[in-house]
């Protein structure tokens, strides 16, 4: 597979380490009253869709950036990739 790195262009997926669903960007509020439940969902439960999936890849053998990649889990087609820092900043901005 090729991962379209937003800064470096297409790179072989072998340079990357995969983590999983990009919902891992949304760490729950540790101080909320239902924090344990929220963390259990966050850590363990996954949509695991057959289709479009937002997921986290780490360019471990490259620039060490974390990317949010949008990929179809049935066809493996990659629909886009963003730097996780950009995604987080955009989230913070809204």
């Amino acid at each position, binding site marked *: *597979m090729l991962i379209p790195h937003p800064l470096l262009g297409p790179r072989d997926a072998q340079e990357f380490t995969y983590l999983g669903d990009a919902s891992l960007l949304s*760490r729950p509020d*540790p101080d909320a009253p239902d924090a344990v439940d929220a963390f259990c969902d966050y850590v363990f439960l996954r949509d695991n869709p057959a289709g479009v999936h937002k997921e986290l890849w780490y360019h471990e053998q490259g620039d060490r950036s*974390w990317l949010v990649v949008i990929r179809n889990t049935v066809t493996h087609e990659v629909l886009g990739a963003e730097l996780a820092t950009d995604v987080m900043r955009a989230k913070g901005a809204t």
Partner: protein
Amino acid sequence: MTRLSGGLIDRSAPLNFTFNGKSYQGFAGDTLASALFANGVRLVGRSFKYHRPRGIVSAGSEEPNGLVTLGHGARQTPNTRATMVPLFEGLEARSQNHIGPLGFDMMAVNDLAAPLLSAGFYYKTFMWPKAFWEKLYEPAIRRAAGLGALSGQPDPDEYDRGYLHPDVLIIGAGAAGLIAALLAGRAGVDVVLADEDARMGGRLLAEGGVLNDTPAPDWVAGVLAELASLPNVRLMPRTTVFGVYDHGIFGAVEQGADPLIGPRETLWRITAKQAILASGATERHIPFANNDRPGILLSGAMRAYANRWAVTPQGAATDRIAIFTNNDDGHRTALALRALGQPVFAVIDTRNDARSLGDYTTHEGAVVSDTMGRKGLRAIEVTQGDRSTWYECGVLGVSGGWNPNVHLASHHRGRPHWDENRLCFLSEDAPQGLHIAGAAAGQGSTEAALKSGLSAARAALKTLGVKVPRMTLPQANSEPDQISAFWHVPSRSRAWVDLQNDVTVKDLKLAHQENMAPVEHLKRWTTLGMATDQGKTANVTALAVMAELTGKTIPETGTTIFRPPYTPVSLGVLGGGDTGVHFRPRRLTPTHHWADARGAVFVEAGAWMRAQYYPTPGETHWRETVDREAAAVRAGVGICDVTTLGKIDVQGADAGAFLDRIYANMMGTLKPGKVRYGLMLREDGQLYDDGTCACLAEGHYVVTTTTANAGLVLQRMEFASQCLWPELDVSLISTTDAWAQIAIAGPKSRELLARFVDDFDLSNDAFPFMGCAALTICKGLRARLFRISFSGELAYELAVPARYGHAVMARLMEEGADLGVTPYGTEALGVLRIEKGHATANEITGQTTAAMLGLGRMVSAKKDSIGAVMSRREGLVDETRRLVGFVPVDADDPVVAGAHLFAPDAPQDLAHDQGWITSACYSPHVGSMIGLGYIESGADRTGEEVIAANPLEGQHIRMKITSAHFVDPEGERLRD
């Protein structure tokens, strides 16, 4: 013997080879198959199940019969297609899968027992008596099965790998591929043209046709010359594209040009923006009774042998030749052979309206209904209506039409669809960017192939946004092929569908009778298509026969998809070469060469090589050495390279706040010049790493990780920094390799170190336990000093630039000689830390909690950190197992890591299992073996006796539970 005139062989270059020990001669340009035919050798092997005598049937990589073992000794290569081996001087080939000589295979008795060996028979029998399956039946089956044999020795050859990134990859250098390469090459894009054959040209080399009045081989030569002159075109003959992977990545294997020079094979990973599949087509046969005899070939293959290699498959030059066909292409073979003066006496054509195209007899509406000749075809029975006649016949060409080679197009599991006009499967949903051209797209005539090659190249260039040059196509044969749907000749005898695996029409019938009709069940029940040709010569025919049996159409019956690899690929090349000591790179510590020179014994620690112990003359057992090293540290001073621990530089205004979230305990409060021990949890609340964190300056920390987790910790810190808290000002970089870190441990360590430091006060007051500093040593070498201890003794870790590790180690030995300074390795390190009750990877397994280490209180409830919330789950809170120490009740008894712990009179089963021993060693300090381990309610069981059970090795040892700290439990020594 049966060599004709002409052909593309070099008669000035004779080559000697042997087959089954007998010497033969062929020419450069021959394949092993053509050379065998040239020498009249027709019987080359035995089939898989019935051990039927078999000859070569094809001229390409689909060959199901002509599998031989090449070479001998460690270079012995089984299951090699004789059709794909370019002949070379000294080639040695042997037939395989027979007991006794090829002509008198003892296993041929299986053929007589054929009625017993029907499809799926083994699922129905060998069940009684129970023990006999493994002891008797299965060993017998295993011996009989298999094809060739491995040598059992390591493969001595070199392999290589590489990466290409063309704009356009063209697979197959026949008419379509060549013209596509020419267009793309002229357009100036980067082109790779790969073909499995040693000689490019595809079927153009096998047909006797002309292009623009130029003989096809000459036209090919002209195109290749132009392509070779273009710097942007790379020609790769002998290169099989075997797999299509995601996003335009292809796997390809290039055979070495010379069997004796350079890598035997090279694995290429080709990342192409566009690709053209011009892989041609594979001819199919028509099952009829006893259709598997040597001398029965695919008709197109016969044409290739005659035109390209100037041979025929005759046993003797007088052998008469016939063709059995359901289409026009069979007639082309008859014509070609007649043109070469060969004794073609008949074409048997299933079509009632068939006409001769030349000077031979055509039996229209007829079939070949049986054959004779066990080791080589002697006669055929032709049936026309209800009249059957036997004819003397030495060679039979069979043409059942052509299957486009859509294999690569279905590697993404796209299913080919049935084309009722062309009577073949064509690819419908090929992977993105893959254009199909030529016979692979059902465009079989030369003219059609050229046209479709050109249009595929145009499409590829357009997608690339490149201007398409003008090109005129050469004039070429455009005869359309007429074909009729005729799939097999019904018979009461066996008619082979899958030649290698011995699947016959009868087996298909039986599968149908047993409700194994869905195509995937059919294949698995009968082993159809599971042979080395992956069904290339059998699957479509079988589908058609099954359709007939079920009364369905072929599309209703199913389709067939193909999986990588296109043709079998050697494991040697897929392994990529370096699989011995260079299988994985290794990391050497900065003092490796120093230790090596001192005779250290090394041990693998993950990627690292570490000094395990340093034997000295007179020591006869490693324990002797390790005891000495450990004792030296307890009594004097020892030095040990600890560079392998991961080091991460953490800098930035928010570095402290960041580390508070990374570590379970407080870290942000750490003052410059101080070091603190820390625990890292996963977000699920489990402990996964521990180490120290040193604050070198305001906003500048060095995090130390365990050797094993150095990469993982950095990855998770990057995740925290980029994905969880990007607002924090923090930057991370690994410095593991930058510093040689040397532990100087023991009561005399301060004294030794004092001789090194430049103007630095090492006194306990000025530089207490858990202090750190940047300083210089040995007159100006920059260094860092940490007062931390893994051994429990007064100890330091000294870091110097890695280049100087070697020199510092040597200097420490020199300067400390009077103090008895002793280098120690990982074994002694292990002893010292077990004696002190420090955890390592044996204890921190990813299944443990901070509480299990007795460090539950370190997980701060006052702040958020990774894993803090989840560490409060019921299962983690209720965990009662704790790390404790063990000594054997009888001091002479061993303590063994991996033993399970039981109350003395409890039954030894899982229900009563209380824990296990994690680490064990002989402790010179205690004077017996000792262990660490986790045991239920371990916090308050000191003094209790338990059984360490190791039934695996027949041990049951009485143990006493102690504190995990065997040495200086109050920690006075390290603060001294």
